[in-house]
């Protein structure tokens, strides 16, 4: 028994296991029901399903969401259950991520020292939500994800996986856009916000 119960950093399932498993959801959904793998559509289905009178809804949200998207909403509900199992049952919440040393150093420069859990509690938590940086990351980030995913017509699953796998050029443009935005935040916005 170690006298120093320092938690061992957790390595992820290797990419060559997780990636092909995720990729197999594309044919599984196509063969089972002709469905296209794409999760951000659920944000639209959820808006369309809100108990608000049709007159109060923009036309984009007036459609038969049960026929078009009930399967996908149930699929997303399943993801939440899988997240519960993965985080609460099959992960050690006290163990930090086994990140690259360069990333750890960069996080320390940003003032992020707590590497446990799946999100940095110093930035993404209810108490951090009261700070400008936390509010921008949680609320601003969430808003931009919801707005941008529908504008672009898809998210990481719909464009980066389904779209690229079907060799759709528009999806490649969207994925390049994802990276332009992500690089700008990581290399410009976050250092300004937290540095």
């Amino acid at each position, binding site marked *: 028994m170690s006298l120093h119960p320092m938690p061992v950093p957790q390595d*992820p399932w290797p990419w060559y296991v997780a990636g092909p498993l995720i990729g197999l959801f594309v044919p599984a959904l196509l063969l089972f029901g002709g469905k296209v793998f794409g999760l951000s559509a659920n944000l639209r289905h959820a808006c369309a399903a809100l108990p608000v009178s049709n007159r109060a809804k923009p036309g984009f949200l007036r459609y038969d969401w049960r026929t078009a998207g009930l399967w996908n909403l149930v699929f997303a509900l399943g993801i939440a*259950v899988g997240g519960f199992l993965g985080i609460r049952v099959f992960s050690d919440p006290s163990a930090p991520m086994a990140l690259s040393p360069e990333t750890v150093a960069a996080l320390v420069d940003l003032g992020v020292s707590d590497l446990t859990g799946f999100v940095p509690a110093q930035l993404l938590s209810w108490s951090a939500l009261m700070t400008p940086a936390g509010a921008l990351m949680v609320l601003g980030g969430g808003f931009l994800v919801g707005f941008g995913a529908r504008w672009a017509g898809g998210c990481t699953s719909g464009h980066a*996986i389904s779209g690229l796998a079907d060799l759709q050029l528009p999806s490649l443009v969207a994925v390049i856009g994802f990276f332009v935005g992500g690089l700008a935040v990581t290399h410009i916005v976050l250092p300004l916000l937290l540095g």
Partner: protein
Amino acid sequence: MTNSALRFRQSDGAGDGASPSPAECLDTEQVEPGLRQRALAEGNAPLALAIYGLLGAFLGLVFTKSQVISWFRIYEMFRFESFHMYGVIGSAVATAALSIWVIKRLGLTTLHGEPIRLSPKAWGGSRVPGARYWMGGITFGLGWALLGACPGPLVALLGGGVSVMVAALVAALAGTWTYAALRDHLPH
């Protein structure tokens, strides 16, 4: 939004000439009345929904155990300091691409015998070609790196009890609603 267009568009199995132009598929929920009944009997049948739920649970577990739902991994990815995320996304795309190639090559149908056809994504009618893809893409990318989660992982984190993601989900729904309201004024 091509999923419903794909799912509910009648296909005669002919060549590309028979399919509607991509612009028609773009973001329209083409739910034909006759097909609604079939959807209720097939895709929305309790057993089918249970299978979608189980598939989702498995995906949520893979997302979690591969740590792609982690803000830290997204940050590391955008700093190019680990191959992990690129390996996951790259091998997922390769697996999916090979699968789609096999499905098209063998002319496979769904379990219910319907033809499988993927609608091409339209470039849109904007003066700026593909405006929605790069403008919307950049908007999404900004949010992805700030929040450290895209829609699927957001839901997985919620299920795992990262309760601040409730606020992120509400913000994401507000973003989608705002897009819906402004849609006619945005380039596509």
